[in-house]
């Protein structure tokens, strides 16, 4: 019954939308209003006004930079929200597994028992432990540096090629997530702790909004990067280009940290004990 009503709603909705397409301009028509009114300005002016060849980056971080600041804030909000919703601090874990490395014997330690030191001899393992992950680990270790370099390239080269802070940040985050998957969550946590992720994400958005506020202090409008020319010692157009780079770095930091943070919380149900 419910299903029928839902289905009818969906079909009606679709039919209504289909009827509307009759008045759409043809797909790919260069004379459609969308391509005629606002966007030609960006295409023609982005080089003279911001000195950034990738128009999307120029519009994203400068003409509509305010949107992008909130886009970064949305990501930051998601990170905080996941933490706020999921994170639980367990004083004592219920069951833990340790492996005696020389002999390969697995110890199951229940609540209250004494835990061995996390040493070379005893290796803490997840409840769902797969011992033969040598290939995964080695491959991950080999490719992660290249992923990181590629991510940095994407952030830095966003002015000239597709990419930018957001994409680069996601790739950086993905590299750390890959590490967390191929090793385990605790190793990843040692490399990048939750606290570091939280503070880094804050730093990233702070760089963005702070750059905007700096322009405000330099007696320009909020996010008007041309005001940075005074500090950077370049002409206003180049200052815009540099401003975009600074902002992109902020975006990259936030996105990386938040992606890792969300992954930590989701994959361990907020306990940060065992990952995937």
């Amino acid at each position, binding site marked *: 019954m419910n299903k029928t009503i839902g289905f009818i709603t969906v079909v009606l909705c679709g039919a209504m939308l289909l009827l509307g397409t009759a008045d759409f301009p043809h*797909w790919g028509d260069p004379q459609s209003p969308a391509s005629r009114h606002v966007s030609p300005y960006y295409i023609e002016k982005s080089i003279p006004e911001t000195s950034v060849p990738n128009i999307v980056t120029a519009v994203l971080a400068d003409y509509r930079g305010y949107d992008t600041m909130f886009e970064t804030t949305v990501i930051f909000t998601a990170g905080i929200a996941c933490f706020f919703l999921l994170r639980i601090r367990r004083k004592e874990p219920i069951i833990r597994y340790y492996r005696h490395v020389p002999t390969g014997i697995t110890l199951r330690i229940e609540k209250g028992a004494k835990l061995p030191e996390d040493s070379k001899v005893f290796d803490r393992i997840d409840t769902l432990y797969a011992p033969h992950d040598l290939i995964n680990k080695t491959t991950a270790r080999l490719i992660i540096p290249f992923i990181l370099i590629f991510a940095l390239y994407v952030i830095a080269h966003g002015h000239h090629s597709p990419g930018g802070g957001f994409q680069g940040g996601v790739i950086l985050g993905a590299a750390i997530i890959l590490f967390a998957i191929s090793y385990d969550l605790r190793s990843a946590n040692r490399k990048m702790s939750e606290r570091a992720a939280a503070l880094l994400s804050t730093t990233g958005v702070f760089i963005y909004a702070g750059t905007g506020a700096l322009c405000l202090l330099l007696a320009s409008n909020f996010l008007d990067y041309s005001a940075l020319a005074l500090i950077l010692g370049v002409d206003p157009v180049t200052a815009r280009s540099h401003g975009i780079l600074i902002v992109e770095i902020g975006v990259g930091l936030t996105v990386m940290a938040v992606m890792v943070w969300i992954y930590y919380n989701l994959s361990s149900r907020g306990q940060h004990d065992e990952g995937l």
Partner: protein
Amino acid sequence: MDDILSILISKYNYWGYIILMMVGLYALIIKKNLVKKIIGMSIMQTAIIFFYVSIGVKKNATIPIITHGHNGAADIVRASDYINPLPHVLMLTAIVVAVATLGVALALAIKVYRHYGTLEEDEIHDFLKKQAE
């Protein structure tokens, strides 16, 4: 025959977005499984992104990156040579919003599972009914 084909070519992308959006909406309204609903939500959001990207397309134009950009005023940039960049910018933002919503929704789903031990809406309602009695 040619007429039909030209209408098809000029509109099929918009029809495609409607189909995808309805697939997402269908999953959101009708499916009982929470993760399925979340997938439906993501599909609906991508469908709208697809619609925006379709708006931006321009025939006989290239991607919105100006080649040899720094040669100065020697090259005149003509708007008709480049695809409309504005929808792309808007949709970058929308993708970010979509992944943020996805993260929060999954966190809530895990919280629901922690409490009820199931992801099926009707099973949760049965459980609540039993609890009330």
